[in-house]
């Protein structure tokens, strides 16, 4: 076993941390308050190569992989989990194009996605819910040599800022009588791509989430990703391994934020003439947060290391996602307790961390879905 990050991964962490401290930390509270997704910061991250780690060099990325991606998401989420999910979501179109795209599609989209010239999104959830993926109401019909798509997507992160969206649709019924799902790569400016209502979220407010109203949107055969009927497999694999490991990195960033903010407060704040850190009850809380962080780190980076090695990691990603998002809520709660009255004052960021943490739980599958994946695998394979 090797628990060390490589020198490049450590350098990357320092580089992103510095970027985050200067370009994200000072504005994170304001973005949250104004419910603003800082596209310009995402673009800047793209220029620095932070959006292209999973893209190989031949397609304009750096090929540093999924562990590098998680390091970036963790460092961004340390200060702004909202921006973290916007960055995380970007790869939900990058990964499927890389894994299932034709050479032409890869050449067309990946270089621009890797550098942030294009921002990406994934639209699969519908008003009926995200977990019932198969029951898609959005349809694509093949007419006069074009696919005509109609339907409504909701809770779509990056819905308004994404230049390229992977759109999941139903294209019929297969021979077994099951819905046949197909994914399309759709550009924002395509007629019929309607940007709908924006959700006012509890947390993760530095990302924009909302509806897409798709009306008679026409695309050619070249927009189909991975072939007709491959949509379900593509989207599930993407959410399962890329989305969940990304969500776990967001949770990890929030936990570290709680750990660091709580520690800073406890060291500086004096009670009975001594720093709070002298009190055992406070030490317990700090120890608890530290444990959440260390466990979360091991789970997250094990999943991403497996992914980088090309090993299946959906169960590992689910465990990391389940643990980190739930632990982030607990860590935020514990930190608010540690800070006493200050914990609930919005001048301190921990209240925001709690809202962000609670909002991570449903994204990419609820905790119960994670348990079904983990439980199912355990019963079958353990």
């Amino acid at each position, binding site marked *: 076993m090797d628990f060390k990050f490589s*020198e*490049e991964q450590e350098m990357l962490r*320092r580089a992103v941390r*510095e970027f985050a401290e200067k370009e994200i930390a000072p504005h994170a509270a304001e973005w949250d308050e104004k419910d603003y997704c800082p596209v310009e910061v995402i673009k800047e991250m793209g220029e620095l*190569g932070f959006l292209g780690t999973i893209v190989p060099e031949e397609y304009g990325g*750096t090929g540093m992989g999924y562990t*590098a991606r998680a390091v970036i998401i963790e460092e961004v989420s340390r200060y702004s989990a909202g921006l973290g999910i916007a960055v995380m979501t970007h790869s939900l179109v990058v990964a499927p194009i890389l894994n299932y795209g034709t050479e032409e599609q890869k050449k067309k989209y990946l270089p621009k996605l890797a550098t942030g010239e294009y921002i990406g999104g994934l639209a699969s959830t519908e008003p009926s819910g995200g977990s019932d993926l198969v029951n898609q109401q959005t349809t694509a019909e093949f007419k006069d040599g074009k696919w005509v798509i109609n339907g409504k997507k909701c809770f779509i992160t990056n819905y308004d800022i994404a230049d390229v969206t992977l759109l999941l649709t139903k294209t019929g019924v297969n021979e077994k009588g099951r819905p046949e799902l197909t994914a399309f790569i759709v550009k924002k400016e395509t007629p019929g791509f309607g940007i709908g209502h924006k959700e006012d979220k509890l947390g993760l407010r530095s990302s924009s989430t909302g509806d897409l109203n798709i009306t008679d949107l026409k695309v050619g055969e070249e927009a189909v990703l991975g072939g007709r009927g491959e949509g379900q497999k593509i989207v599930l694999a993407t959410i399962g391994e890329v989305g969940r490991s990304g969500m776990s990195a967001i949770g990890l960033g929030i936990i570290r934020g709680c750990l660091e903010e709580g520690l800073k407060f406890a060291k500086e704040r004096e009670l009975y003439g001594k720093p709070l850190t002298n009190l055992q009850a406070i030490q317990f809380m700090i120890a608890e947060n530290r444990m959440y962080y260390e466990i979360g780190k091991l789970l997250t980076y094990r999943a991403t290391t497996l992914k980088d090695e090309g090993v299946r990691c959906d169960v590992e990603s689910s465990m990391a996602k389940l643990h980190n998002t739930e632990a982030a809520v607990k860590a935020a709660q514990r930190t608010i307790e540690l800070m006493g009255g200050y914990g609930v004052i919005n001048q301190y960021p921990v209240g925001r961390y709690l809202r962000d943490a609670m909002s991570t739980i449903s994204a990419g599958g609820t905790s119960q879905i994670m348990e079904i994946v983990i439980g199912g695998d355990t019963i079958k394979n353990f």
Partner: protein
Amino acid sequence: MRIACLVKPVPDPEYYNRISIDPVRGILTRAGIPVVMNPTDRHALEEAIRIKEKMGGEVVIFSMAPDDAGGILKDGLAMGADEAYLLSDRAFAGADTLATSYTLAKAIEQFGPFDIILAGNESADGSTSQVPPQVGVWLSMPSLAGIIRMEYGESFRVWCDVEEGRVEYEVTPPVVFAVKRGINTPRYIGIKGIMAAKSKKVSIIRVGDISVDLDRIGLNGSPTRAGRIVVPDIGRKGETITGSPGEIAEGIIEGLRKAGVIKEGMI
């Protein structure tokens, strides 16, 4: 154009309020304070890289620090420098600015020649601004400090910040330049730089690797000696004013009045 850039790892200035002193032994505790590249040196490195990008050549980092400073130099390589030399040896320890500048100058001489030596105007920990001009003396190169602007072509034009203005100089290399932070905005390190740094080398230089006069390095070569270290008591027993914004404003004005800075008719 070969450019040497001096880089110093320093305890992160953001944490200086946490530096404490052991009253018994008179030793500073820096525990838990991360070491970073001296902020002003990043601007020097940025300028060095810009000169290279415009005029061609290479940028070589020189730093005198313990072995564990290698990571910071690696970051410098990721920014765009080509090579780094880390001068690390027990024999160099205890050096003041004169011995430090001598040691750096000897290494620069060994791996030179260089047309330009760039450095930050001051370090965050010592803030003496002494090393760059002294490196110049050892290498018989003229030096300028407090540089806020630079133009380069066949000769260099630089503008030094002085009291109430700037003095413009024309300079013919080889020369030592110490720059201020206002000269540029250093780039962030991107992944391309990190990947490129993989194949660049940080060479550790021990005392035997350069030809130095042992009486000029380390503590032996340092004319200054550190005496006691004291924590000056600059604390004040202040009063806290509370109340509504209006009441607080009144309290402030009351204070200004007592200090005699509010003249009749001002309010």
